[in-house]
């Protein structure tokens, strides 16, 4: 087996933190005082009990930061980085802490820069259809704001109600509507970023294309290891003329999978194409009435957008594809309220899993979409083999699975079985021509699995870019790449932590 089963705690070797290989001589108290001088005494968190909430993000890992700094502006962020750099202290950027791969967790002895105070929408440019924002702006807040101007921000990731745009950039976040519109990287035009030593750079611009190496492109999705975005310009899209949402009801997963292939095979790329399996339907209906039939084997949620003529024509093709592949019912929603009800189920699913089991662990594999049937069969096999309940709510249209292992960690040995099952699924996705993560990132969670996908040389080539941006590797050290220092996953404690609106 290529991967290491996590056994130790998150460790970062001293070389990863400081090129000199030693810690700064500055005492923590003095360091905290220096941080306070930059941002003000109220905005440095350093008492252990106050730090508790910064110990984890949405992932399975935990790591207590030495301090958390909340800058008010770019200058404070830059000076904080410069100070940390001088003192040899590693830094992790933190948006809302909703990430699922450990991206926002501090390295041991490291600090977090939290962007909750930098949450202003600075400008909406209706002429050029762009918005310029601070990194702490919440994804849904931006979208809601720009809708007043007849526009929208297309990427709609997991915890859209809670996650920040800065975090979206770090992870190259996706979401249901990325099927048609692409992920975060396709929507970021420009960024001002702070490097590990506090140097500020402008990546990209208001212009959609600029000459030189595409630093903006390679920065997005670098999981906070290249720099920290402090000011962001994103592209907005005009609102479509017509939106139509379909609920396809299927007797089983296999027929729902063939419907996915049939839709895509008809040459249709919907705005969104999501699948919700029987277990998830039951969970959803336990907490809300999304109108999903409780005896269905699976439902597909399909959204079409565009000119009225396009949507009208494609609708008929979608409907016939659904019926031909064995749908027992097809419902269509055109009114906003009806559409929202259908989406409510999708968006409530992860919170609703709490009605089935107290703990969950989510896998983010991605496969070529024609392999969905096979991979979902594998999911059932794994479920049986390890005795773990697995629910599936996922982005079927782009082959991005989210098998969710549900269990009660008080049951002896169940946690290890869940992790082993997750590992087997990740391996299988890669075997099927897929990859480890579609939208959640590698972080701490999956770094030991990277050798399943990339050779040592592939990863060394990636590190060449990190070495250019962050030669001292002070930003988010110990993430993404395997380092032989595996970690102990501590698992999502209670489902109540998940935002009820979270959909992943």
């Amino acid at each position, binding site marked *: 087996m290529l991967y290491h089963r996590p056994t130790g705690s998150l460790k970062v070797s001293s070389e990863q933190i400081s090129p000199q290989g030693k810690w700064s001589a500055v005492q923590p108290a003095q360091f905290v005082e220096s941080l306070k001088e930059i941002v003000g005494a109220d905005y440095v968190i350093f008492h252990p009990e106050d730090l508790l909430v910064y110990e984890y993000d949405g992932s399975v890992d935990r790591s207590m930061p030495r301090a958390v700094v909340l800058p008010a502006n770019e200058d404070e962020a830059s000076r904080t980085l410069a100070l940390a750099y001088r003192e040899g202290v590693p830094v992790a950027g933190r948006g809302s802490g909703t990430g699922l791969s450990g991206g926002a967790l501090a390295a041991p002895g490291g600090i977090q820069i939290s962007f909750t105070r930098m949450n202003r929408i600075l400008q909406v440019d209706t002429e*050029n259809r762009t918005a310029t924002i601070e990194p702490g702006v919440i994804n849904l807040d931006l979208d809601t704001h720009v809708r007043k101007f007849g526009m929208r921000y297309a990427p709609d990731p997991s915890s859209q109600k809670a996650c920040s745009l800065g975090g979206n950039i770090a*992870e*190259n976040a*996706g979401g249901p509507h990325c099927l048609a519109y*692409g992920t975060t990287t*396709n929507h970021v035009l420009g960024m001002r970023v702070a490097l590990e030593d506090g140097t500020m*750079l*402008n990546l990209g*611009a*208001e*212009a*959609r*294309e*600029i*000459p*030189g*190496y*595409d*630093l*903006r*492109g*390679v920065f997005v999705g*670098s999981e906070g290891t290249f720099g920290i975005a402090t000011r962001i310009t994103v592209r907005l899209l005009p609102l*479509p*003329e017509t939106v139509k949402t379909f609920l396809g009801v299927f007797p089983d997963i296999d027929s729902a999978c063939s419907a996915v*292939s049939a839709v*895509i*095979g*008809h*040459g249709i*790329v919907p705005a969104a194409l999501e699948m919700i399996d029987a277990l998830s339907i039951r969970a959803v209906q336990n907490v809300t009435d999304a109108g999903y039939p409780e005896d269905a084997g699976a439902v597909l949620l399909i959204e079409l957008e*565009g*000119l009225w*003529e*396009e949507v*009208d*024509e494609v609708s008929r093709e979608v409907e016939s594809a659904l019926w031909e592949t064995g749908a027992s019912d097809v419902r269509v929603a055109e009114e906003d309220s009806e559409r929202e009800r259908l989406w409510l189920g999708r968006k409530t699913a992860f919170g609703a899993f709490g009605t089935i089991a107290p703990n969950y662990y989510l896998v983010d594999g991605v496969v*070529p979409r*024609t392999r969905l049937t096979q991979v979902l069969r594998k999911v059932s096999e794994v479920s049986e083999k390890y005795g773990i309940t697995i629910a599936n709510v996922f*982005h079927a249209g*782009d082959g991005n699975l989210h098998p969710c292992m549900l269990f009660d960690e008080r049951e002896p040995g169940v946690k290890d079985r869940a992790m082993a099952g997750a590992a087997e699924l990740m391996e299988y996705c890669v075997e099927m*021509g*897929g*990859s480890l*993560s*579609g*939208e959640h990132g*590698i972080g701490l969670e999956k770094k030991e699995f*990277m050798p399943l*996908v990339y050779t040592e*040389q*592939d990863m*060394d*080539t*990636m590190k*060449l*870019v990190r*070495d*250019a941006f962050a030669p001292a590797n002070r930003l988010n050290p110990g993430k*993404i790449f395997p380092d032989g220092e595996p970690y102990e996953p501590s698992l999502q404690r209670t489902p109540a932590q998940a935002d009820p609106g979270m959909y992943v």
Partner: protein
Amino acid sequence: MTLTSTLAQNLSALVGADAVLPVEGVSLDGVTPQAVARPADRQQLSEIIKWAAADGVRLFPRGGGVFSSLGNLPSQVDVILDLSRLNRIMDYQPADLTVTAEAGITLATLRRELAQGDKYVPLEAPLPHRATVGGILATGFSGPLRFSSGLPRDWIIGACVAGSDGAETRAGGRVVKNVTGYDLNKLYTGSLGTLGVIVEASFKLAPLHGTWAGLAAPFPSMSGAVNSSRELISQVYAPQGLQVISVDVAKKLGLDCPGDSGAVVLAFISGRPRAVARRLEESTRQLEAGGSAGSEALDEAGARDLLDRLTDLPWLEEDMPSLALKVTLPPSNVGSFVDAMELPPGAGIIADPGFGAVQLLRWTPAGLGDSDPGVTLALIESVRRNATNLNGSAVVEVCPPGVKAGIDVWEGCVGEAELEIMRRIKQNFDPAGIFSPGRFVGRL
């Protein structure tokens, strides 16, 4: 024909005479290479790179050579690396909407193969029978449909690149959504062969269906044309591509254009027939309300033909402009940019008011002779000033080697702090400086 240079002889010994081509008639910006290597396969390519790295031989990767005027004047051209034999389709999965192909495949061949499965790759290029996938990626080329189709960076999902040690490394994969590791695909796209040799790339595809239509709408003035286009582009029924061309360009394309200061708006529309009909109808109505007189609708064949000819125009070997600049700027500034430009004789404009790009082209009028370099330099200077004032940047894409020797074609495009990161990237990827040295921004 003899293999005169030592480099050619060494290459021949290394990979066989079959993989070494004559240098006659081959040049890069007027500089004749010492050798042209055409590796038969990836193994040979790897051997050539290892040899070059060991001996400090400078390699200039080339696909179809369509964009070979792009970049600063190379100080010395050792070997042009012709990648045309690396042209296989490695994996095409129509139902997954993905394809993986070697970089030397031409866009025309790739399109034809993809059409067999009713798919297409939304890449654009002039002279698609020559332009290769590798060349399109290396230059990051985009065409008249960039407003709706985006750029090559938006479609690439994976790449294999031969690095300075001759070994291939992989980034991304064959799935349409992937955040596993750094997105080096973005870095390679537009890097002009300075980080390695792109050997293979994977792309997301789009379904091929529906029809095309077009519209050529003459306007009495360039600014009227740009303003009307800006209005149109913000509508839900906007065309997929909208270009404003000046008189000289219109003439080259055989289109009627009123007066000496007029312009023509070209709209390209694709999709399902009913939607195409509506977009065409609404576009015509809106452009006419904005001051166009006598617009002409184009059918599918007419629209596609015009789109191809427009894309090819600046890159036709038999009628190359002597000067071509590409300006990118915020879309709302396109109007101010064209208003501020005073065009010398023989110069024309192709503006993309939806995306925010302007191509400025000049075909040197006959009889200008020696006085021309001064005009050319003055024009470059004024375009740059103009672009910079409007939050944009300008790249000289085509210019006579004599003029190029005195300028940096990327001048003012990249700030010093950003350039420093680019320098480090180049240094880390290509420590021996063997990949297209001197061509890129900052003479990387």
